[in-house]
């Protein structure tokens, strides 16, 4: 409980300072949230360079909000940042005229995840999982992808997701359930196809061996 109170105090302090246009508070907000926002944008639109540009724009817009005193009574700063991010992505889609069609498997800009604590086998397994999920996410519906990223990648609570997407908590819960089912079907489909192909290849190899 004391940790919660300390965190509440810090959040309240930052919010109050932001409302007074304190730049140090804003930089702190940037440091705390930039990776989450970047990740959110990246998994939504698929390109790293575009994600970089959009993330910069999102924080500048947030600063404009603060300066124009339109921060209002934002319950959480995170919610505000995500709302700005969503709007920025919609504008991006409008300008580029497309949504995510390409896989997140960008050969030129492969995202390397280096975790020193892992052994090579763990890293291999994780990389495989990463590639699988990254390849299937763009195939999901926009709203499914969004809730999955917010909940399971960026660890937002149901309450925060509901505030950001302007839905009720119940709706968000149902959406998450459907999104997970849809993603699981895609992944299982892929796994089944992979097994079928492996079996085919094994049969072919066996036949060739027999011929020899």
């Amino acid at each position: 409980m004391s940790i919660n109170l300390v965190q509440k105090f810090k959040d309240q302090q930052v919010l109050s300072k932001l409302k007074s246009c304190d730049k140090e508070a804003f930089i702190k907000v940037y440091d705390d949230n930039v990776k989450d926002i970047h990740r959110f944008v990246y998994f939504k639109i698929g390109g790293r360079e575009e994600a970089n540009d959009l993330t910069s724009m999102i924080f500048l817009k947030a600063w404009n909000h603060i300066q124009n005193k339109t921060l209002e009574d934002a319950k959480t700063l995170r919610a505000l940042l995500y709302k700005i991010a969503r709007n920025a992505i919609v504008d991006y889609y409008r300008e580029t005229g497309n949504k995510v069609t390409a896989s997140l498997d960008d050969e030129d800009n492969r995202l390397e995840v280096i975790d020193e604590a892992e052994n090579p086998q763990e890293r291999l397994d994780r990389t495989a999982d990463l590639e699988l999920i990254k390849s299937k996410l763009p195939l999901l519906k926009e709203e499914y992808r969004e809730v999955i990223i917010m909940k399971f990648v960026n660890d937002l609570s149901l309450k925060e997701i509901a505030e950001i997407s302007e839905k009720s908590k119940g709706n968000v819960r149902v959406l998450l359930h459907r999104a997970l089912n849809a993603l699981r079907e895609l992944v299982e489909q892929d796994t089944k196809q992979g097994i079928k192909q492996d079996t085919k290849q094994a049969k072919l190899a066996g036949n060739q061996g027999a011929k020899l």
Partner: protein
Amino acid sequence: MTNSQLIAKLNNLKKVNPDQKWLESNRELLLSQVSNSGAENLSIWKVMIINVSSVFKSAAQPAYALGVFIFLLLAGSLFSGPLLAKTKPNDSLYIARIISEKVKVNTTFSSVARNKMEVKFASEHAQDISVILSDPAFNNEANQDQVARLNNSFNEEVKTVKERIGRLSASGAAVSDNPSASKNDEVIIADSTKDGQGIQLSVQPLISATATLAIPAGFNLNATSVDLMATSTETEKVEPTKADKIIDEAQTLFDSKDYVKASDKLNEAYEIIK
């Protein structure tokens, strides 16, 4: 694949981060743009005020709510009392007055004080009813139902007053009709004779002992019994019959529709009782 397995795979995506070089360069850029927009660092005083208000907003929210609730309760009881006391039986807020009086009675621990309070409230109600019924603008044919109700209420209040006076006298609490009587007198009676004659001493504690001695002729000083009776500061001599009589007179006047005199009689009865 189960949902939990899928979620575990999704959690791996948390480790996907932007390039460190980009992070640093973007931070510098943002900082320069924010500085150029005229933002300044807050003064120490402003920071202190923010810190204090943040403490209250974050840590004390439940305490805040409780504090505000208690304050409203106290303020309400302080300020509403005098206001509610002015409401009359035909007002809409009269019920609030009744409720607040009941709360006061129920939160009084001494039975004597409680009975006296109930006598006070009941006699005030009866007086208010008399005042209303003495107003010809109210007491007319159009309001016969309300008049009848108020008549019943008056009878109920008078009954309450009598009952409470009865309880007060039964519990030994006394009402003195002599306002000059000292409440702190100790009375010592020595009486060894069967004819009731004896020595009566009045002693005032703390200040001085003054004794008035009246010895009847032929008194035998070989007293074999001494009765000591001390009156405490809380008790006074009982005169229930006098108050009861006045209340009965008030009832008679009320029944004969002399509301003004009935109200005066009730006031007189209350003055005796208190």
